[in-house]
């Protein structure tokens, strides 16, 4: 599904160049649940941003579903993001003046789907994350865990090929974190490919594979025995 070869990325900080990713080789097959781990500054978020086409790569090859992703202009990147990718952010990034249902239907709006169908699809995804009754509530009326579940529903509503989660539990307490992980595991069981960036060990262990980054290179890449989050919920 995802194939990355010899990926380099550096940032210019004034006169200095910060070499963040120093040759990453990385493959993800369909249906995997991968945790990308590393301390801050290890380049894990940069990697996720490049995979998510939110950032461009300097050197190397990146193919997503056999399409070479390179030198995209913003319009094309937006279309690919809309078609291939779903995003879950640490700070949820829900649009605060839209209710849960409207937030979930937003990617469908950009896919050009008709209003009525949008609402039906969005409602079915809200139901999947257990928030059907909260459809008309604004983000400010939801708890952190609920917000993240709305965000996950929004990411899934566009039927992406890959779900990218950047510290999805970073702003949540332990119990709520496990609820969110339980949800991600269930989505993964349905056959969806998920990448989770995290720095928490126990969250990483709930994935099927852990990739560790340090100073811009992969230091470890192993499959693990998945811990089911439902045990803690």
């Amino acid at each position, binding site marked *: 599904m995802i194939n990355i070869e010899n990926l380099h990325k550096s940032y210019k900080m004034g006169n200095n160049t910060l070499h963040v990713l120093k040759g990453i080789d990385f493959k993800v097959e369909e249906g995997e649940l991968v945790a990308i781990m590393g301390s801050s500054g290890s380049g894990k978020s940069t990697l996720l941003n490049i995979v998510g086409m*939110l950032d461009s790569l300097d050197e190397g090859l990146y193919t997503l579903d056999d399409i070479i992703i390179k030198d995209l202009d*913003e319009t094309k990147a*937006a*279309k690919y993001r809309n078609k291939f990718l779903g995003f879950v952010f640490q700070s949820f*990034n829900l649009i605060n003046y839209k209710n849960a249902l409207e937030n979930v239907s937003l990617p469908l709006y950009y896919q050009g789907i008709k209003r009525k169908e949008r609402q039906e699809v969005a409602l079915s995804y809200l139901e999947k994350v257990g928030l059907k009754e909260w459809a008309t509530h604004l983000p400010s009326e939801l708890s952190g865990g609920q917000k993240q579940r709305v965000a996950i529903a929004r990411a899934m509503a566009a039927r992406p090929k890959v779900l990218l989660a950047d510290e999805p539990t970073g702003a949540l307490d332990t119990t709520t974190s496990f609820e969110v992980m339980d949800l991600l595991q269930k989505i993964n069981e349905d056959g969806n490919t998920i990448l989770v960036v995290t720095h928490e060990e126990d969250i990483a262990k709930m994935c099927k594979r852990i990739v560790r980054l340090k100073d811009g290179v992969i230091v470890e890449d192993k499959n693990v025995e998945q811990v089911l989050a439902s045990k803690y919920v």
Partner: protein
Amino acid sequence: MFSLDRWQEIFQTISKNKLRTFLSGFTVALGIFIFIILFGFGNGLKNTFKEEFLEDATNSIRIFAGKTSKPYKGFKSNRRIEFKNSDIEDIKLNFPFYLEYITPRINRFALSSYKNESNNYSTQGVAPSHQYFEKTIMMKGRYLNENDVKNKTKNAVIGRLVALDLFKQEDPLGKYISLAGVAFKVIGVFQDEGGDNEERIIFLPYTTRQLLEKSNDKIDQILVSFKPELGLKIALIFEKKLRLFLKNKKSIDPTDSKGIYIRNIAQAANQNEEFASVLQYIVTFVGLGTLIAGIIGISNIMVFVVKERTKELGVRKALGATPRSVIAMILQESIFITALSGSIGMLIAIVILQNLGDTLDKFFIRNPYVDISTAIFSTFILIIFGAIAGYIPAKRAASIKPIVALRDE
């Protein structure tokens, strides 16, 4: 291209962000409102100005006689100059190229009475062409004619207020009034837009006035009008020649500034018109200033709005919004708000201007108005600039990478 979905999206954004919408809408409405009100006031000032200064014929020249201040050709100084009927004939003979109308005028105050009512009015002994100089409008009967002058008839044309004072409800036509003891027949009633004093005048044939004053042929003033197509420059030449001619005829030193006074209304009117157009420039300038202030106001708000929405725009882009759709959304929203609130501001201002009418007369603002095309044009300009002001930050926001927009601050 009309898209119901996009409009729904925009209406939602507008209705969920009431303060923001109100602020930008208010700025636009206020800008256009002030512009139109100011412009209307400016027009009102101009109206007042025109009515105050430009009511009489503007191509006329008034000639007065005075006392000389220099000795000349054996005459001592301090000699009183007087005009005579022959002067009129000489001017007619010598200046046919320039001349349009000419009339003498003899001013006398006279106690006028009808039945039990009496009052002092200014009487003016004039020729029929005098009607042209004062733009006298006949309400009833007729003005003086050549017959009146030739036969020295005792006919009088009275002002509207004279008729009202002396005759009350009675019809004055054909009645006789006494002017300083002499009976005159009222043959006409006139009105004049120059104000009340201009309607408290009685016109008599100048020959009749001369007859009453021991059959002399003296004239107080001469009113001359030049052909309007000659223009101001030639009028000034005419004035010069006229002065020279009269000084020569009356044996006045050509360098003597006294003796004969000539007041060229054309020159005064020209200055007045120049003043009026300066007034118009000032009004336009102030109006443009307001408009620019309004545009700057919208620009500021648009920058602020886009800044405030950076994160939202980042989210939208991460979810698949193309830069084009982001720009289109912001523009459509800003144009919609500017157009709506601009029209509201414009309509309110127009309605207020129309209802003001003469209520601001004491501030020299009469009938303030703004023509619809100016109003619509300025609103349109404001909308265009509002769109441009929105486009620049929107374009910048749309080109920011979502990763930057989404960065937690």
